[in-house]
Every structure is written in structure tokens, then in C-alpha cells.
């Protein structure tokens, strides 16, 4: 009953959000809010994607930048080779990200958490090195991209990208919410608490971790795909920037990972603060604030913002909207 009502409320909220975003692109003239808003939406989607493996299953992925960068370069390579439209670029990036997630997961998810974390850093560096040596997409120097003409009903490419990223946020949140409320979510939560006890209670831990790693990876790469068109440029050191990893991880943990709303809150809060700080002070200070907030939260508020809002917050069987 309540579960059903929650679902209706959730999808109604999603519809209102998308309609609001779409009308904003039609009404607001100035492009700047869309430039800034795109980045915040991108971080919401990344944080939610990160939390599927990092939050629900408790495997800390330092390689958000690897998946993001792979998304960027899948789009770049595809666009340069075939001029494929944006939607195809995103779908291809998701497929590559999922494959990568499967590979990494198979390699490392049998091991203790820290090894998985280190392996994800390794992955990012190795892939970045390959891209740096890949002439077709510009190597270390990067590549300029010419945006194709914008499609109706949008009058600017940035506005369209803003809408596309909003759709990706909805997809990420929808998937995270589904997982949280399904038995996959309960299995992941069980294995995060105690992997052996979960196995002995019938949870196929390796399979669930792999599924989480693949979904999380697919989403991260999909989120990265439009970034090349957003900047009209791509280069390895910014596509594989470690800041994506810290941000996704910090936003998730600061928001709280027991519920999908946590990463969303964390990303909105930190994302807007970052936009503000980067513009007004400097990008170094902005990263410093991120780091300090992360450390403060993991030490003092282990359950994140949602834990502070509801002191005994728990993931419950029925699920919340």
C-alpha cells in the first residue's frame, strides 16, 4: 500500500522535475545558469552512481575518473569516427563502462575492500596512459570538437546538454532507488555488514557485487559521455581528473549512503558550494573544502547528512519514495 503510494509520489516528482527543467530551457535566455547547472547535475548523477557500489555494497571506488574518462573518450572516438548523435554516444559509453565494470569487478571483487580501491586507482592511470598515447583522439594534447547543430525544441546546445544530464540524473536515481528497495539492495547491505555471514545466509555475494560494479560503471561512463560536447574539447588529464573521484566519493559519503537521497543532497550542497567557491576564490580552495568536509564527515557524522537529519536512520524493507 504505502510502497505503491511512494512509487506514485516518486514518479510524479520525477515528471515535475523533468517538466521544470524543460520549461527552464525554453524560458530562460541567459546560458550561464545552464553551464553551472550542468556541472551540478553531472555530480548528482556521479554521486548516485558511486553510491550503488560504494554505499550499498561498501566497496570504495577511487576510479570514478576512470569510468568518467572512458565515457568521455568513447563519445569522442565515436563522434570522430562516425559522427554518431549524442544519444548513441551516451548509450555506447554506458555499454563500455559496464564492460569495464565487469572486468574490474571480476579481477578484484574477491579481495578485501582496500585492494579493490587501489585497483581502481591503477585502472584509471593505466587507461589514461593509453589514451595519452592514442593519436586518433589527440593523445596528450587533447582534441577540439565541433558541436553539430542543435535539435528542436532547444535553441542552444548547452541547454540541450543540461536537459540530457537531467535525464541521466533521473535514470541514475531511478536505478538506485530500484536497487535499494529490491532484494538486490538487501543483499548488498548484508554483504557490506558481513560478507561471510551474508554468504552463509544464501546471498550470492560475488554476483551481487559484480552487478553493482557494472551498473555503477555504466552510469558513470554515461554521465561522462556528454562532457566532450559540453566543453567542445577533451584531453586526458582533465577527462581522467582525480577530482571526479574525490567529488563522487565525498558527495556520497557526506550526503549519506543509506538512502538514494543522500548522494543527491550531498551533490547539490557540495556542487553548488564548489561552483560558488571556484568562481569567487580559487579552484584549489574548492578542492580543499571538499577534502576537509569529507574527513570531518567520516570522522564525526558517519551516516552523513541524512543521518544528522534522522538520528536513527535505517534502510527499511518497504522503502521510502
Amino acid at each position, binding site marked *: 500500500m504505502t510502497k505503491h503510494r511512494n512509487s506514485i509520489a516518486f514518479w510524479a516528482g520525477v515528471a515535475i522535475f523533468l517538466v521544470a527543467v524543460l520549461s527552464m530551457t525554453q524560458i530562460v535566455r541567459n546560458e550561464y545558469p545552464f553551464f553551472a547547472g550542468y556541472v551540478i547535475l553531472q555530480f548528482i548523477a556521479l554521486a548516485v552512481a558511486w553510491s550503488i557500489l560504494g554505499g550499498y555494497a561498501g566497496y570504495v571506488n577511487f576510479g570514478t575518473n576512470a569510468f568518467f574518462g572512458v565515457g568521455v573518450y568513447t563519445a569522442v572516438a565515436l563522434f570522430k569516427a562516425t559522427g554518431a548523435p549524442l544519444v548513441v554516444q551516451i548509450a555506447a559509453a554506458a555499454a563500455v563502462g559496464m564492460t569495464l565494470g565487469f572486468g574490474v569487478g571480476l579481477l578484484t571483487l574477491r579481495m578485501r575492500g582496500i585492494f579493490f580501491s587501489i585497483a581502481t586507482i591503477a585502472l584509471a592511470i593505466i587507461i589514461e596512459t593509453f589514451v595519452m598515447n592514442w593519436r586518433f583522439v589527440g593523445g596528450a594534447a587533447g582534441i577540439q570538437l565541433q558541436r553539430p547543430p542543435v535539435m528542436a525544441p532547444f535553441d542552444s546546445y548547452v541547454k540541450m546538454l543540461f536537459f540530457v544530464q537531467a535525464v541521466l540524473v533521473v535514470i541514475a536515481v531511478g536505478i538506485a532507488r530500484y536497487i535499494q528497495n529490491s532484494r538486490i539492495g538487501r*543483499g548488498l547491505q548484508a554483504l557490506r555488514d558481513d560478507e561471510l555471514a551474508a554468504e*552463509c545466509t544464501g546471498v550470492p555475494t560475488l554476483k551481487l557485487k559484480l552487478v553493482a560494479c557494472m551498473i555503477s560503471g555504466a552510469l558513470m561512463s554515461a554521465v561522462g559521455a556528454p562532457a566532450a560536447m559540453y566543453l567542445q574539447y577533451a584531453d586526458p588529464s582533465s577527462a581522467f581528473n582525480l577530482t571526479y573521484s574525490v567529488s563522487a566519493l565525498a558527495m556520497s559519503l557526506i550526503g549519506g549512503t543509506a538512502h538514494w537521497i543522500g548522494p543527491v543532497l550531498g551533490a547539490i550542497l557540495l556542487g553548488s558550494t564548489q561552483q560558488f567557491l571556484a568562481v569567487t576564490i580559487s579552484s584549489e580552495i574548492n578542492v580543499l573544502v571538499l577534502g576537509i568536509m569529507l574527513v570531518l564527515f567520516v570522522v564525526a557524522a558517519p551516516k552523513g547528512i541524512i543521518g544528522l537529519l534522522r538520528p536513527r536512520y535505517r534502510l527499511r524493507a518497504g522503502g521510502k519514495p
Partner: protein
Amino acid sequence: MTVTTAPDAPLLQVGTLTKTFGGFTALDNISVDIRKGERFGLIGPNGSGKTTLINCISGALRPQTGSVVFCGEDITQLPPHLRARRGIARSFQIPRPFKSMTVLENLMVGLDFATVGSSLPEEDVAMSILTRMGLAAKAGAPTDTLSQVELRKMELARAMAVRPKLLISDEAMAGLSSSEVDEVLDLLISLGEEDITIIMIEHIMQAVMRFSERVMCLDAGKIIAIGAPAEVMANKRVQEAYLGT
């Protein structure tokens, strides 16, 4: 493998099991059959291999040689979750609850993953198990608010949610008061009456004597005695192992 239907076929056959860690032999050529519906006591001094044996049965460890056959099927190479689905459940020596969940949710994990097709809603099944274990009042409580005896019962309840044919209880009474020991023991005995085969590891001898139909004593990875409880207790080597002479 057609013998499974025979009424007196063993539920669990452990055959020539050997497990070593580096140069240390934890289990040395262990063979034992456990009958369907049996209440089986497993004793032995600390480090004698009891927990290693049940780790090999439940799948947490793989032996170097030997086999584990359950209901006529060789399960030696199966991961623990597939053994749980076939009906092997266990509790842990040091309780390992899912800490971020309530008591009820702990049971739901087993119902979600190990049990197939029940007509009743899962939550009702979980509640009936909790009522059975005397934990109904704690269904919504987080596990970190439970007392020691409640934690022990919760572990047994979670194992029951797997709908086991074989339940392995690893020192479920350690650290409990004598009245609490009786409480848990009565629970185990009543479970044994509903066709669940139980292996109980225990140090408290009165409990072992009262519970077991058959007792096996391990020492340094070898079986030193197996048989009726009184017989095993009277065995000279068992007494030596326990007194440490």
C-alpha cells in the same frame, strides 16, 4: 546417487577430509556420517579443528582433500550461498549480525535469498520464526541494542530463515548464564523435533550431554572418540584431551 530417497541414508557424509594451513594440519582425514534428524554434538579442546570442520561443511573453507556430500550431492566445491540454498545453515561462534539492519531485516535476508517460493508474505514468515525464538518483541530493534542471549537467538533465527535441513550451531551458549543456556538448549531441542538435523559445537558439557544423541570428540584435527554421549565422556583419551595431560 539414487540412495537419497532411502530412509536411513545419511543426510551429510564427510569423507576423508583434510585441511591444512601452511604447515599446520587443522583437520586430518576426517570421515563421519550424520543421519537425518540426528542431534549431533561436536566437542574437543580449543584449536582441535571443530570450527574448521564446520567451515568446510558450510563452505567458508575448502578442504585440500576429501569430500562433503549433502543429500546425496557432492557439495565440496560449492560456494557457501549455494549450500545455504540446499539447506545448510549455521550460526557463528562470535555473533555476526548484519549491524545496519533490524532483527526482522536480518531474517529477511535469508528469506529473500535462500528460500524459494512461499505462499505467505515474507514478513509473516520472519515474524513466526521470531515468535518461535521468543524474539518477537525485538523484531524492529537494531541489532546493536540486543543482549548477548538475544544476539545468540537472533543468529539461530536467521539460520532458521534459510529453512535448513541441517543447522550448525557454533558455541551458541558461550558466555551465557546457566538459565540462558537452558533457554537456548530447549530451543535447539525443540527445533530438532521438527525434522531439522542439528550439529552442535559446545564446551558446556551438561548441555552436550542433554542435547546429543551422538557425540564426536576431536583433538589436534583427528577424531579420538565417537558414539553415545556417556561412552565418549568415559573415554580415557577424551578425558586426557580435556584435562590436557
